[in-house]
């Protein structure tokens, strides 16, 4: 077989043909990629919304929702289904970076569900248009602190639907809850029992502990360097950097970990098995929100709004809190149906206050994402 291939390649005719096909294939591939690039760029910034929009009845009707895995379940859009609209088609991304890259490459959808920190990124791609909040009946009931995070130039580009904290979970038998600071994650006295999550936000938390001057979401290079070095210095205290949150829950339960970067669901799932407390640090707990964004060229404009409305229903909110351990943006969620301990952990008794500074620092667009990631890589590599 090898000699056959050799024979084909050795004969000058065969070799030329081979190279010719290779060049064609390569050239086509390159052109195709460029083509995608051009289409993405000409998608136009902002909404080139046609003033004359077809009514809901003549829209195609099947919404394409590009979602996190687990957000396709029916209870989240029950009222949408109840109105008789066709079931949406779901596709999934692992994280928003991946979704953004695919979108830049030409992938289309009607609705996507990113964190508020990426609203600007989608806008920069020219992939989205603002919502018409008048079409969403639940909008006035939504948490203004959250919805502000979804705005650009006063226009509502993202309807923020769910949210959470990135705080600290501690074992109260080893750490003092009254310290109430991100310093648990850098505490030498807890050496060997600290667990970080694999995220550059550890740098932000270091920044908060050190009290850096610049905005932690957009630090000066010197401040970033300071935070990085602090993290590298404190890395020796680590038990591990967790990747799978259920493993982290186990380690907390078993007492291997005394302080960990955690979302509130960690506390909800371990509080019956071990003495734990969820800390919303005094420096301000880092909070994240995510919600629905609308594609600039969607053909299902009105359906999308209906879908957003279903998501923002108080019943949906109750379901999300009780099943996923995330917060919901609708202020009218019936808290009597929620476990009081959860209400406490989430600060659901004052959702607006607890999600605004100084209590919470809401995620927002990071202009220097690359620099932050490189710094975080350096911490991990150290």
């Amino acid at each position, binding site marked *: 077989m090898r000699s056959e291939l050799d024979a084909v390649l050795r004969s000058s005719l065969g070799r030329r043909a081979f190279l010719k096909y290779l060049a064609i*294939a390569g050239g086509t591939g*390159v052109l195709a990629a460029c083509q995608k690039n051009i289409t*993405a760029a000409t998608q136009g910034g902002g909404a080139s919304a046609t003033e004359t929009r077809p009514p809901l009845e003549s829209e195609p009707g099947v919404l394409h929702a590009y979602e996190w895995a687990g957000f396709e379940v029916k209870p989240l859009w029950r009222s949408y289904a109840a109105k008789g609209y066709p079931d949406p088609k779901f596709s999934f991304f692992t994280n928003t970076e991946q979704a953004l*890259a695919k979108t830049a490459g030409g992938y289309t959808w009607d609705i996507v569900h990113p964190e508020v920190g990426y609203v600007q990124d989608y806008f920069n791609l020219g992939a989205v248009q603002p919502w018409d909040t008048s079409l969403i009946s639940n909008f006035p009931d939504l948490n203004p602190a959250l919805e502000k995070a979804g705005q650009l130039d006063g226009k509502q580009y993202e309807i923020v639907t769910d949210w959470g904290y990135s705080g600290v979970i501690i074992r109260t038998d080893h750490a003092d809850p009254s310290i109430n600071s991100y310093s648990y994650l850098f505490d030498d006295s807890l050496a060997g029992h600290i667990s970080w999550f694999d995220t550059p936000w550890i740098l932000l938390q270091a920044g908060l502990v050190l009290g850096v001057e610049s905005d932690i979401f957009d630090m000066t290079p010197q401040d970033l360097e300071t935070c990085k070095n602090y993290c590298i210095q404190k890395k020796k205290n680590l038990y591990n950097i967790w990747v799978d949150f259920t493993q982290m829950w186990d380690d907390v339960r078993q007492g291997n970990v005394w302080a960990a970067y955690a979302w509130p669901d960690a506390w909800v799932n371990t509080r019956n098995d071990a003495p734990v407390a969820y800390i919303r640090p005094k420096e301000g707990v880092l909070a994240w929100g995510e919600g629905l964004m609308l594609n600039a060229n969607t053909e299902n404009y009105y359906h999308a709004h209906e879908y957003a409305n279903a998501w923002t229903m108080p019943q949906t909110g109750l379901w999300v809190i009780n099943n996923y351990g995330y917060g919901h943006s609708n202020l009218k969620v019936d808290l009597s149906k929620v476990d009081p301990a959860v209400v406490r952990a989430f600060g659901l008794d004052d959702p607006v206050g607890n999600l605004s500074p100084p209590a919470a620092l809401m995620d927002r667009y990071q202009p220097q994402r*690359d620099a932050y990631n490189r710094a975080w890589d350096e911490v991990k*590599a150290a």
Partner: protein
Amino acid sequence: MTELDLSIETERRGRPVPSRRRRGRRGAVTAGLLSGPVSYLLVFFVVPVVMVACYSVGLLTLLPQDHYLSLRAWHDFLFGSIYMGVFWKSVRMSLGVSITSVLLAYPVAYLLALVAGRRKYTLLLVIVAPFLTSYLLRVLAWRVILGEQGVVNSFLKLVGIAPQGWLFYSQFAVYLVLAYVWVPFVALPIFVSLEALDLSLLEASNDLGASRWTTFRRVTLPLSMPGVIAAFVFVFIPTLGEYVTPLLVGGPKGFMFGNGIQNAFLQGFDWQFGSAMSMFLIGAVMVLMAVFGRFVSFRSVSE
């Protein structure tokens, strides 16, 4: 193929045979049969790699922040960053893992090929069976063995020794788990080369006065070397880019070159940088293959 044609030509020396045409027809059939796999390789392998290479220098761009036609990514990677250090760390780890797996796998292969007798293939099946389970499960299972509350530490606690934290979430765990995962793979080429060993060679060595150990050292080992080297290369190259296992069991020190690439694409948004790193890895692997190629004649391995 060429020899055949020549002999036919000499037979019919009187009459000129249109051998060129014959060869041409055979060549066309061969090209036709090859076109399927070759185009598959071209489309799904060569073209994407070329695209990533173009991407790394900005010939292609995708994201708004990408720099068109710029070597910035390469410059940052090669000169400004910690990633070269991480690369060498990965190289060291790969070497360690490869050597460990070969050392572990050799006795296994030896036992199977030369000692096991009739049960040889059943045992081979038993050893390969773990492959049928999920890779992730096999890696995570080590937590049960090596973790703080795992089998080893529980036993140590029973005997009165303090639990050893370095067994898991550590470099040790990365080496051990990777070597374990690779041993069945590695045992196979060694097994094959040992199986192919002519047993009368061992008898001859014995007959001439060599003890069992000397026979192993002078005859068995050198003759199984092609299989060992093939196995070593087989482990070393994929392990260079390995990132899943270090992520899962490596703890704070578990950051490898592969993780760097993964982060650039998935956590960061720095596709150009990630592409530069990927191309570097591909280049490094090709250089290594060329180096190994000089030491091992692939023909002898394929035999």
